Structures are given as structure tokens and as C-alpha cells.
């Protein structure tokens, strides 16, 4: 039983690292998309830098409240469900 608690703590720590890395990656990809969207838009040719910054900040604000960010929680949920399924299948008669 102690082993199970230890595995849970270790697993949580490991998945938290994955969660952190995926969060940084997802944010970076989103920001890059916003930047490229702005830079490739001919209507925004010659616009000021602070307009661009404001646009990107608004886009990042959308991201913060979006579904995509919440989906990263699957990093915890999927392994936990897989753990339960494996324990059941392996030990059921």
C-alpha cells in the first residue's frame, strides 16, 4: 500500500513536469501563430509596434480563457485512467 502512495506521488510529480512543459509549448505555439497572423496580413502593413503588441496580448488573453488551455489537463487525466484500466485488467481473473 505504501508503494502505491509512493507511485502516486512520483507519478504526480512526473506528470507535473510534463504539464509544465506542454503548457509552455502550447503558449509559445499560440503566440507564434498570432505573430505570424499579424505579420502576414497585408491590411496591417506599416502598423505601429504597440498595435501589434496589443493584438498579441489580446490573443493571449483569449488563450488564457480558452478550451485549449484546459485540455492540457488531459496530461493528468489520461495516465490516471490508463492506470486504473491496467490495474483492473491485469488483476481481474
Amino acid at each position, binding site marked *: 500500500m*505504501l*508503494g502505491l502512495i509512493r507511485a502516486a506521488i512520483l507519478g504526480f510529480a512526473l506528470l507535473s513536469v510534463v504539464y509544465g512543459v506542454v503548457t509552455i*509549448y502550447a503558449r*509559445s*505555439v499560440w503566440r507564434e501563430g498570432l505573430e505570424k497572423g499579424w505579420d502576414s496580413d497585408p491590411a496591417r502593413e506599416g502598423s505601429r509596434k504597440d498595435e501589434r503588441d496589443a493584438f498579441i496580448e489580446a490573443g493571449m488573453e483569449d488563450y488564457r480563457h480558452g478550451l485549449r488551455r484546459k485540455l492540457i489537463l488531459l496530461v493528468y487525466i489520461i495516465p490516471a485512467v490508463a*492506470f486504473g484500466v491496467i*490495474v483492473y485488467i*491485469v*488483476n481481474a*481473473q
Partner: protein
Amino acid sequence: MGGNIWKWVKRVFWAGLMIFTLGFLHYTLPQHDIVRVTNTYNRLTTIGTENAWAYSVPDTGTAESTTTRDIRFIEAAFADGSVIVYRNEDTGWIWPPYFKYDSSNLQAEAGNLKSIAEAPKWLVVTHYGWRLPILSIYPNAVAVRAATSVDEQIIPWVSIVLLLVFGFAVFMVRRMWLQFVDRMVDPALAGVGEAQDRAKGFFGRLFGRK
């Protein structure tokens, strides 16, 4: 000349990593044998330093002492007459992630399905690990069930799914790394051309493309 040596260092490094990864996966992923169980028993087994990696860690349910412990074994025979011996140990909760704690039940099931050569009951034994007599290591049986026939075709769904997940993970790690280099490292180095060249030392040559 110098470039040539690095080319070989690089090749050996990647080949070594590849072999290790494949061996690791082959050891850990589940495999299926179609066998007939001939005997089940416990044996007091002394585990050495050279083969401890192929036995359960000491604090799992069935493995209480580090060096000498009672281990359940299942002996079986293939259709062609060759034999195999499985150990039957709890895996514990960390690695390999089978989370098996029903070794006693499995031993009882295997004993119940025992058969003789004249009236064989063919079984599918799911296991992981290797049988290497020189190291005295045994694959760990995980499950046993009756086979539909001696030449039942088994599709290894679990391995297929896990390899896809593994491939996806490798792909994502690579993409994340490239994203990191693109967005963080390159802009930071853009102004310092000299530093960039110097930074490309040992690891740069090992992992760099060319």
C-alpha cells in the same frame, strides 16, 4: 580528418541509443506464448547483482528480501516440445507498469490449467521479459487464459497502442525542442555570432545536423 571521427562517434552514439531503446521495449512490452503448463512451484531463489534488474524490487508483495526469496515459477512446453520457465512475481507500482498484485491467483489459475502431453490444454500466457539461462532470468507471467487452438493468431493490440503513444511522445518532444530553439535560443543568440560558434562544441557536434 577530425570531421570523420565525429561522424563515427555520432553513428555509434545513435546506434547504441537505438539498440538500447529497442531492447528496453522488447523486454518491457507484453508478449504472448501459446504453451501447455506442465508444472507450478515455489523455489527459494538467490538473486545476484548481475540479474537483480530482471526481478521485482524487494518491497513488492511477493518479494520481501533483496537477495534470497521464495519465487513462484510456472513451467510450460511449446507445441514443438521446447520448454519455457516463467517466474510469477508481483511487479509493484512503478516499473514495469503492469501493477500486478495477483501472483497467488495467477499461480492457482496456472496450476488449475496444467495438462499432460497426451491431452494438451493450450494456453495463452501473457508475459514480459526474457529467458536468459546464463543470467538465470525468467520472463514474468502476467496472465493466462485458454487458447482457442494451438495456432491461434494473436494481434498484440497493447504493444501497437503503446508504440504509437511512444512514437507520438518522441515526435512531440522533438517539436517542443525545435520550438524552444526557434523562439528562445536563436533570438537570444542572434546578436552574438561569435558566442554561437563557440556554443556548438561537443553536444552541438553530437546532435547537430550535417
